[in-house]
């Protein structure tokens, strides 16, 4: 190697080192002191060891107003690139809070967009790690245009590649809309915040005094707003969560999920002990899932939000399935506005990415009341019906206990396109429960009876005998088979194996018009 080579290589090394330094040791120390990893450390934790390759590490801003020409840093406050996760290619961006607070300018946005474009072209998931103060004010409209470019790509990529947003610091203003369009949002307990307007603006506009955590912290978004899907204590556990979630997904909408050798479980014999025959008694439906899915394979989504419905991914004989289940232990598993939104979005994700859906039914009703009606339960509940109806992936239902009225229809009933519907012998499939039904259809007979209480009981018994079982539905073909609970895993597995090559297409259209 001659001297000219040496000089040029030294020059390259210096530039690389400068780019890798981020905001410098002091800011890195500050980042660590607040319990956060740096942008590069996050990439290292996200990808398989030694697989991350950075792209465009020397891009920097071309802005010069407000002294930007003196503040420019290679990389422009975001790291982008690709690597492997479980041996499969994925792309990611990671905002560097140590460089200009991770603020987004023109070049910063361009880097993210390039990585997204490549992810789309290659057909690989895109993970966006957010830790940014927001738009770079010095770059004016170019910052806003940068956000728009990202939102547009998020939208076009939706349903084509899985998109995950990881919020590991502030995410404020318009920046929130990129995560919002993505499929899943991860947050950490202490350091993540998402809000359209921060506490100071809220105070000045509405007079309300509220902290950043109260306004848009992980606790709020994982329980009240439903914005966040997963919450972890810190960066490392959060990025491990992302790795785990991606293990359930295919690379893109033309791909299928990996089959993972796992520990098979068949504890179905315990199902009759988990689910009480008396439909007035509750139970945790997650115990039901654990009894038949592969051991430890269930990953619940939005566990703290709309707890009356449980959704998540699990594996059966190593293959990914999506599970939608009424949670008897919370609000008796009734469907309401938030549960409908949560369920419908999950169903649509599964349908986008060829993930078969298993529905576990134990639903008394759509929740009654003016709060629900005025909040638009008609509009929101319709999303569940719409999502199930348009889903063309294999759809299997198990009616475990109650299946009443419109809520029965909404929970992947035969009429909405369920491929196979199983029911347990204790299933009650009817327009409504016996007491309510008799109060309506038996009112005259009860009023005219010498002993109204005895007459009511007689009618309730008659109703129970005639309707509160799975056999009427089975006679009419709305239930394909009444099964013992201990047969559940075997039957469901067999149904999904049979449906593995299912091909169903919908009429040609630009897109449907789901009630939003």
């Amino acid at each position, binding site marked *: 190697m001659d001297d000219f080579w040496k000089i040029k290589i030294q020059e390259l090394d210096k530039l690389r080192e400068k780019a890798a330094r981020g905001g410098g040791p002091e800011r890195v120390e500050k980042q660590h002191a607040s319990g956060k990893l740096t942008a*590069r450390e996050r990439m290292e934790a996200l990808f398989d060891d030694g697989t991350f390759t950075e792209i465009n590490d020397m891009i920097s801003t071309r802005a010069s107003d407000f002294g930007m020409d003196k503040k420019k840093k290679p990389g422009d406050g975001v790291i982008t690139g690709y690597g492997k996760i*479980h041996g499969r290619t994925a792309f990611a961006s990671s905002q560097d809070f140590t460089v200009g607070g991770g603020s987004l300018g023109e070049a910063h946005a361009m880097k993210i967009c390039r990585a997204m474009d490549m992810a789309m072209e290659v057909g690989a998931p895109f993970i966006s790690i957010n830790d940014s103060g927001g738009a770079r004010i010095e770059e004016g409209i170019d910052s806003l245009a940068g956000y728009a470019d990202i939102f547009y790509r998020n939208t076009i990529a939706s349903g084509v590649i899985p998109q995950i947003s990881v919020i590991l610091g502030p995410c404020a203003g318009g920046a929130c809309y990129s995560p919002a369009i993505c499929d899943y949002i991860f947050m950490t307990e202490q350091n993540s915040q998402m809000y359209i307007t921060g506490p100071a603006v809220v105070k000045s506009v509405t007079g309300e005094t509220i902290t950043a955590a109260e306004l848009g912290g992980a606790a709020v978004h994982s329980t009240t707003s439903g914005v966040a899907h997963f919450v972890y204590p810190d960066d*490392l556990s959060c990025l*491990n969560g992302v790795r785990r979630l991606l293990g359930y997904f295919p690379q893109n909408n033309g791909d299928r999920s990996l089959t993972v050798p796992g520990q098979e479980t068949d504890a179905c014999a315990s199902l009759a002990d988990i689910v009480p025959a008396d439909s007035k008694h509750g139970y945790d439906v997650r115990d039901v899932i654990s009894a038949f899915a592969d051991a430890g394979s269930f990953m619940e989504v939005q566990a703290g939000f709309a707890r009356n419905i449980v959704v998540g991914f699990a594996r059966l004989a190593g293959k990914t399935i999506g599970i939608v289940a009424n949670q008897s232990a919370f609000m008796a598993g009734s469907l309401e506005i938030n549960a409908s939104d949560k369920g419908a979005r999950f169903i649509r994700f599964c349908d986008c990415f060829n993930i078969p859906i298993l529905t576990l039914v134990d639903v008394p009703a759509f929740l009654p009341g003016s709060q629900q009606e005025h909040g638009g339960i008609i509009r929101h509940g319709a999303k569940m019906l719409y999502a199930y109806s348009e889903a063309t992936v294999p759809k299997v239902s198990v009616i475990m206990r109650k299946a009443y009225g419109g809520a029965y229809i909404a929970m992947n009933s035969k009429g909405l396109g369920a491929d196979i519907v199983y029911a347990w012998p204790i299933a009650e499939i009817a327009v409504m429960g016996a007491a309510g039904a008799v109060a309506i259809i038996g009112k005259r007979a009860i009023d005219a009876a010498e002993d109204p209480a005895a007459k009511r009981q007689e009618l309730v018994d008659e109703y129970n005998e005639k309707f509160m079982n799975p056999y009427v539905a089975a006679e009419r073909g709305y239930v394909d088979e009444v099964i013992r609970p201990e047969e559940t895993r075997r039957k469901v597995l067999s149904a999904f194996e049979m449906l593995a090559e299912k091909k169903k297409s919908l009429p040609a259209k630009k897109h449907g018009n789901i009630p939003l």
Partner: protein
Amino acid sequence: MEKEQIVAMAVAAIAEETQTDASAIRVVSFREVPKSALEQYISDRQIEYRKYQLGD
């Protein structure tokens, strides 16, 4: 652990894996790979961490 010990252990492991005589293995070069930033962070803070692997 001294560098010499690390090299000796590596040679022994290679010999066992390839079923060859350790004396027939010649070390051409040895370079200590520095800890990555993340490894250093974890090590400095004595954090219990294992990267999630499919099947865990």
